[in-house]
């Protein structure tokens, strides 16, 4: 049979037109929805099969039944472990008595060098064999600590903790050893360029204010500290009315209340504290250089900042993030590292002490390039103050702060620490729910206002250490 083309021609025409329509429709879709054919990170995040994971950060406020102590609790039952963090306000190294600097640090050490009927060795052997983490330390403002244990050891861990806090023996031999350790640690700090420069910077910035003191005391202050000094400080500063507590992990609210009563039983009720004054950092004096022969010069920069409670807090944090955040995309990192290869790294941050708020940063480079790096920091600093940040930079910095937020839940120790910080800064029980909204709502105007106020040429001071000769040669 002969093939009759004309018979199927209409069919082909129809097929052709359908194909044409399909191609056109696909084309239009491709044009309108570029994510289908081009890599689009936003699309990938929005359509991921890993989205909509439900998570609620539920923080409860509890009051312990007997002592009526308040605490924040975050229940997390996936692992049988518990983390308790706490701090005593106004009990940090700035509250060490004159000529007895280092007292708080020594106290933190001595609390776990023998307590109750246990000597240092027996006490710590129990902790080690049961993986009970018990740490005390101090910052400039506070005396803080952490207890971490496996749920099944709750009775033992509680007992050991309470003994350390209320019945330390302060054995004379152990105290003598602890003083020598502290002195050796202080001498070691003096060796290291970073820590030495920071000690010197504190003197420059804080003048006669006790914030100038090292946590490790001085070369001779430790020797003057007596057992009576330790007991007096403990009685006056480590008290119930001075205490903030955060608990995270495998405990219910009832268990946590009971736990608190047992942990802190026997503490004195009321603190007796001599307040310390406000301490604005001194930045009007000229830059300060410490001469030392080093392969790499190190610099620190300092400027006045705003308080944690200040409404300009987040705007300033965002501005600092854009200028010198820890990531590789900050303005200074880009200008100095990525574009010029001048440094391995520059970072900056905001420090909030109870009585002082300041911006600080660190940078380093070989002596021949150090001045150039310092100049870039100064230039970027002034530029930020003069012209502010762009919409795009702000969006990027906000995205980072918002999207990285869940990472704080990685570690229960970190969660309990956050709970203490929330109380210290009065952030409210719902802070974790609201925090991202605070950041989202910050406007470009707010950031640029605070930039104009704080990133000025006269609000910046450098403290540097290293080889000044090679600097001059260049």
């Amino acid at each position, binding site marked *: 049979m002969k093939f009759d083309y004309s018979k199927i021609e209409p069919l082909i025409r129809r097929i052709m037109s359908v194909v044409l329509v399909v191609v056109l429709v696909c084309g239009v879709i491709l044009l309108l929805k570029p994510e289908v054919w081009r890599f689009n990170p936003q699309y990938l995040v929005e359509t991921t099969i890993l989205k909509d994971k439900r998570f609620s950060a539920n923080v409860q406020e509890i009051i312990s039944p007997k002592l009526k102590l308040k605490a924040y609790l975050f229940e997390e039952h996936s*692992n049988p472990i518990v983390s308790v963090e706490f701090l005593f306000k106004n009990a940090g190294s700035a509250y060490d008595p004159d000529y007895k600097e280092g007292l708080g640090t020594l106290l933190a050490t001595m609390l776990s060098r023998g307590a109750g009927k246990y000597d240092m060795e027996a006490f710590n052997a129990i902790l080690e064999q049961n993986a009970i983490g018990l740490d005390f330390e101090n910052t400039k403002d506070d005396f803080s600590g952490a207890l971490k244990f496996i749920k099944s050891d709750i009775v033992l861990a509680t007992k050991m903790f309470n003994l350390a806090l209320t019945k330390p023996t302060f054995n004379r031999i152990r105290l003598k050893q602890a003083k020598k350790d502290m002195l050796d640690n202080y001498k070691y700090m003096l060796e290291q360029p970073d820590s030495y420069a920071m000690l010197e910077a504190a003197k420059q910035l804080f003048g006669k204010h006790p914030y100038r003191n090292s946590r490790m005391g001085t070369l001779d202050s430790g020797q003057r500290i007596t057992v009576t000094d330790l007991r007096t400080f403990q009685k006056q500063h480590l008290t119930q009315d001075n205490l903030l507590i955060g608990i995270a992990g495998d405990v219910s609210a009832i268990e946590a209340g009971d736990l608190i009563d047992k942990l802190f039983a026997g503490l004195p009720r009321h603190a007796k504290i001599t307040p310390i004054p406000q301490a604005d950092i001194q930045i009007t004096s000229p830059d300060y250089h410490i001469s030392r022969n080093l*392969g790499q010069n190190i610099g620190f920069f300092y400027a006045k900042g705003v308080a944690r409670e200040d409404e300009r807090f987040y705007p300033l944090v965002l501005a600092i993030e854009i200028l010198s955040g820890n990531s590789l995309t900050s303005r200074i990192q880009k200008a100095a590292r990525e574009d010029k290869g001048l440094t391995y790294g520059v970072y900056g941050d905001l420090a909030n002490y109870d009585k002082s708020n300041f911006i600080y940063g660190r940078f380093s480079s070989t002596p021949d390039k150090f001045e150039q790096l310092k100049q870039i920091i100064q230039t970027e600093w002034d530029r930020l103050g003069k012209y502010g940040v762009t919409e795009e930079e702000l969006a990027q910095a906000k995205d980072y702060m918002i999207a990285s937020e869940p990472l704080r839940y990685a570690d229960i120790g970190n969660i309990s620490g956050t709970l203490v910080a929330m109380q210290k800064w009065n952030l409210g029980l719902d802070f974790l729910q609201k925090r991202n909204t605070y950041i989202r709502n910050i406007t470009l105007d707010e950031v640029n206002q605070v930039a104009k106020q704080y990133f000025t040429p006269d609000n910046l001071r450098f403290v540097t250490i290293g080889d000044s000769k090679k600097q001059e040669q260049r």
Partner: protein
Amino acid sequence: MCYSQSAEAVLSDATEFYLKNGLHVVVVPNHKAPIIKQIVVYKAGRVDEPRGKGGIAHLLEHLMFRGTKKFKDGEFNRLIESNGGISNAATSHDKTYYHQFLSVDRLELAMYLEADRMANLSFDDETFVKEREVVFQERQERQSRNTTRDFWEKVDKIFWKDSLYGEPVGGTSVEIMEITKQDILDFYQNFYGPNNAILILSGDIDFETAYDLAQKYYGKLSAREIGQKGNTEDVDNREYRDGEYTVRTERNDINISRLSARYFLPHFKSDEGYLYAMMVFADYIGNSISSPLYKKLRLDTHLATAIGTDFDCFNRGNSTFSFYAYYNNPKDTQKIQNIFMQTLVESLNNMTEKDMELTKKRLLAGLVYHNDNPSDAADIVTDWLGAGYKLEDLKNYEQHINKVTLADVKALAATLNEYHPLWAVATPMQEAK
């Protein structure tokens, strides 16, 4: 023996599989928060570089952040950062690894980017030169961060003799400036294939999803012919083992004295029993307040400000055992050395069943904490697998430790007595009288 009901659960949910292209994938589910850590480990580091050309692996690590055929310089960091990721990388003698810790809904993006730079690295000459400068600066930075670092580098060289383990990971300053772009591209081509890599996903993900995503993003990469790896075989030609040998320095930039004793040990792979017995012994002798060394040097005499022991078995080559002490009075050097040697002999002779039991208990007590932080869990997997152990070794850690007997410990630790350690002593410059 059973120490803790929870310890046996350590990373017990971890599973592994291989893609067709050879990529080894390890999944460690942890559903407590919607976060995850991705690590890609390349089993190549300083020891796989040509001799005399140090720093290639490390400079390559830096350049991996500076562009691919698809993404221009800076895009990788910008994308990870605006998605809240904490991202970095590190190079060691044996391996180079890259990690991102982020919200789980951003994981696919991170996988896309990580897979992309496994195959498509691309950077121009100018970027290369600048990044080499950054790496040079990093080297200087590390030198000045730690006052005595140059001394320990010298000690490393003597300790390892001809082995590349004795060379600084990132190369010397001179070596760094001699690296060429071609060196980098060669190393990348030789070692950055999926068949020389391990992908670790630790966090809020289940096995099936992890499998699908690994397949989706890494499955299409082709296996490569992997280059000649460095020699990590057991080498035993160290003269200092036959007699007293101390490397000394007096310096005017330190206030505190420090010393170390280092033992060169057989390759761990030669005997698995040896490995775990050594872990127990190293912990027993110097890693706790109840240890003989701590007792003698800190509690009783207080000669030292700090002491410790370390059994390093996390490399592909020989393992090492070391002891270190920080102390105030340089005149105590010989005394501390004597106490260490004496304690070592005594411990081998006098260690009891009770000591064994307590040491094991201490070693195993905290294992359940590993199930808490998904980022830490990923790092542990990196350490073990990056050094050539199997996932099963890690999962069976508790059983292995429990199986160790007192006789095992005594037999193997006796090897420590057969040879001398390499001593290194750094003391402050004494003022002339």
